[in-house]
């Protein structure tokens, strides 16, 4: 679907809602439908936040394959360029996409998908939980936070238009599928949290079977007669060092999941979230969180752990779009992580926790087909001494823009959703009204 046709369908949608007869007919059709899952969603602006736990690697989602420093920083996890086996997808203007995300390329090209780079928390936080709390609370210091920005946003949506109306808002405006009540939805507004059902992660994700086999194969050679002692000792210590490192990474990777289901559940939970939107017509906010992006070990490149996780993420977004149907035109999906990953590959084929990351914006009113923010430079000074990609934009900028430009709330609402935060980027940067954006 190109942008023009997409806009045409959007216009049709709006027409249906505007003409009472047509809307009535649609309502009747919905009531008669045998399968309530296929009923169209109530027309409403919606915002869905998808949290990829662990810190998704920005340099793999949008690999800078033309930058020669990329292969220096990532000797075994750099993606090949377009045209090569497993090569990145060329999105034009120097932007490339991970091949596992190829299904998203069409959305990028018709302007429904955008990325924001160099995004993150104002302060550098190495800990998954602490950084995740900042992103969910929407506050730079979230150690004592008791409520989340999505809940505060739900309060804003339920705020009566005139101050005289004292009737409390009883509508459920936010829904989530999560094993526990997430911080982002904690607060005074009513919410609905559904359990995701049973799920399991693969056992020992931080294993390197290839290197374990190699260690096993060479161990007798190092133990053989005639091998100098410093060498055999270094070998044993090296193998032990790797085992310890892997065990420590394993623990961290498990913690980074935050108890949330693996991203392979994204497609079916996306459908359930939309079903919940259908059940609760006042609900405008949704939240999903998935683990599996803390790729400290064997991250892989075109294939491997991260490629698989990204493939599930692409599948999940497609499932979400499919379940939303025409309502996608009125929905914005924001995909976030607690931080990005470091520039340098580590010694076990992975990348470590970094700072600057990536946000994905998807949906009808997104000013898509572009990458916002400042491109991180990979050169010189960061290679050996500094391992982080910088944060050049506060993570709340696109969120605040969604509050005003997409949901239509006021600047005062932003000040209450993100206390103490003053947006510096114009909201229209991220969310252009579609008709305005399509005009030359």
């Amino acid at each position, binding site marked *: 679907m190109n942008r023009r046709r997409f806009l045409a369908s959007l216009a049709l949608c709006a027409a249906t809602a505007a003409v009472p007869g047509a809307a009535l007919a649609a309502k009747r059709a919905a009531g008669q439908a045998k399968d309530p899952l296929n009923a169209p969603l109530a027309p409403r602006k919606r915002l869905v936040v998808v949290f990829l736990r662990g810190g998704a690697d920005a340099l793999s989602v949008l690999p800078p394959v033309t930058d*020669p*420093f990329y*292969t*220096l*920083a*990532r*000797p*075994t996890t*750099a993606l*090949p360029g377009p045209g090569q086996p497993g090569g990145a997808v060329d999105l034009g203007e120097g932007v490339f996409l991970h091949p596992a995300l190829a299904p998203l390329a069409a959305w990028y090209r018709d302007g429904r998908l955008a990325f924001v780079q160099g995004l993150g928390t104002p302060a550098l936080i190495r800990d998954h939980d602490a950084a995740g709390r900042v992103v969910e609370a929407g506050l730079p210091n979230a150690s004592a936070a008791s409520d989340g920005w999505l809940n505060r946003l739900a309060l804003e949506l339920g705020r009566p238009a005139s101050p005289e109306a004292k009737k409390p808002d009883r509508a459920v405006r936010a829904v989530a599928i999560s094993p526990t009540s997430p911080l982002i939805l904690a607060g005074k507004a009513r919410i609905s949290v559904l359990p995701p059902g049973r799920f399991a992660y693969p056992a020992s994700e931080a294993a390197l079977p*290839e*290197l374990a086999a*190699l*260690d096993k*194969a*060479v161990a*007798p*050679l*190092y*133990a*053989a*007669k*005639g*091998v*100098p*002692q*410093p*060498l*055999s000792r*270094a*070998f044993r*210590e*090296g*193998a*032990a*060092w*790797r085992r310890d*490192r892997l065990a420590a990474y394993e623990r961290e990777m498990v913690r980074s999941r935050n108890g949330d289901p693996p991203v392979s559940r994204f497609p079916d939970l996306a459908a359930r979230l939309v079903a919940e939107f259908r059940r609760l017509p006042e609900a405008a906010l949704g939240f999903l969180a998935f683990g599996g992006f803390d790729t400290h070990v064997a991250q892989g*490149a075109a294939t491997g752990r991260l490629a698989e996780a990204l493939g599930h993420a692409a599948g999940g977004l497609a499932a979400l779009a499919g379940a939303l149907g025409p309502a996608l035109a009125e929905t914005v999906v924001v995909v976030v992580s607690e931080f990005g990953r470091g520039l*340098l*590959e*580590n*010694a*076990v*084929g992975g990348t470590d926790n970094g700072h600057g990351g990536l946000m994905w914006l998807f949906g009808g009113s997104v000013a898509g087909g572009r990458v916002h923010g400042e491109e991180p*430079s*990979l*050169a*010189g*000074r960061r*290679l*050996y*001494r500094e391992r982080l990609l910088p944060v050049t934009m506060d993570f709340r900028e696109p969120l605040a823009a969604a509050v005003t430009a997409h949901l239509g709330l006021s600047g005062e609402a932003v000040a209450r959703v993100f206390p103490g935060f003053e947006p510096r980027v114009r909201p229209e940067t991220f969310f252009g009204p579609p008709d305005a954006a399509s005009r030359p």
Partner: protein
Amino acid sequence: MPPEHKILHVINRLTYGPAPGDVERVRAMGVAAFIRQQLEPDALPESRDLTARLEALPTSRMGAVDLFREYGPTPGTGGGLGPSQVLAARDRAGVVAREAVQARILRAVAAPGQLRELLVDFWFNHFNVDAGHGLARIWAGAFEREAIRPHAMGRFLDLLAATAMHPAMLIYRENWRNVAPRGTGEPGADDPASGREEAAGGESPDQEDVPERAGGLDETYAGTLLAVHTLGDETAYTAEDRTALARVFTGWRLGAPRSETDKNGFFFDQAAHDPTDKVFLGRTIPGGGIAEGAAALRILAGHPATAGHVCRKLAAFFLAGEPSPELVERLKDVFLARDGEIRAVVEALFADPEFFDEKRFAAGLKTPLRHVVSALRAVGTPPDDATPLAGVLARMGAPLYYCPDPGGYPGSGYAPTARDMAARAAFAAGLASGGLALWSKRPPGLSPQALRETLGGAQEPASGASSRQAPRAGKKAGAGKPVSKAHLPADPAVILAGPEFMRY
């Protein structure tokens, strides 16, 4: 040493390791002829493929002054540089360090004059500069090309003088700010240090790196020169000698690289020089401007302690272990008699019976650089892109050009660390699986048969002499069983990660 060991030994010590066909070639031409050939690298035909690959690295042909003009901090327009401009200039300059690493690795893998390449590595570490130190980031490669490479087999004094005057060394060892202390400067110049600064604003190399410019004596370079580059023996000099030497080098500063006339980045600043007479190592150096530095370097280059220090280090590098004191004496005599000619010293070393002593066979443990380069040589196909190897070396704990220690990376007596060994296993696995994408097409030399053939007997489990020097503590079931050649691994990763490949 048995003849077959001799062949492998001479390849292992005079090159970065056997490439396909090397063992047969040396067997055919003879060990002595091979040594003679390596001692005359200019007579060896240049590899056209290597030349073409180096051509593709434009900054690796630029001189220090041009590099500064192109990649140095951009001149401030009135108010100096903002922090973001400084960082942007640095990011732009990253290409210089990257191409320098690529050039060094490509040459080490593919240059036919392997002995010279080893000596370039040896001397670079001997006169180490750290590319992480201020402006040295754009000059580390130029330092190698301009100060080290031309003299790697030449006269020690020339090497010493070239390194002393090179802007990379002036920055790294802080001599660019070594100026005459107040009151000792030229008569009439009350404050030569601050006066210079105003006169030549462009000369300040990098404001960001050097927040404050204290005028005065800086003994950093003098200390390194004595302790690392030359005498090496703390009993051979006193603190007064070091101070006197620092005063000799006052005014040895960076050229004004933006001036049209500057050719090499060095600038002798008469006004910042301490013109008084100095007593250095018991000899009087009369005040005479830049000639004092030349006199001091000549004294140092011809000093018996320098000869001993340099010869011991060279011998240890090629023997992969401590030389006997007698051998050091023999080499020292050559050094002093031949006016510090490095070629003559290594020639004498290779002709010495100690060089072919059986206990020296496979006695060394490879440094990260030697390990990586020897693996690529064994495969026999230079990488399409050497850039990932810079990252591999960093992971092994030895990023090229980024050794912060003035003594450089160790050239002998190295024992791999645990992390280094873990990184070597990952490197071997990456090469074997293709996960480390160095070649667009899997090179034929990566097959286990080809590797075994290339590496010759080096892959046979060590026995005899080497087992004597490494008595094993404790016993494991089957551990002491010698592995026969038939059981040698069928996986290239096992060969490249095995203990025999760690040794040379």
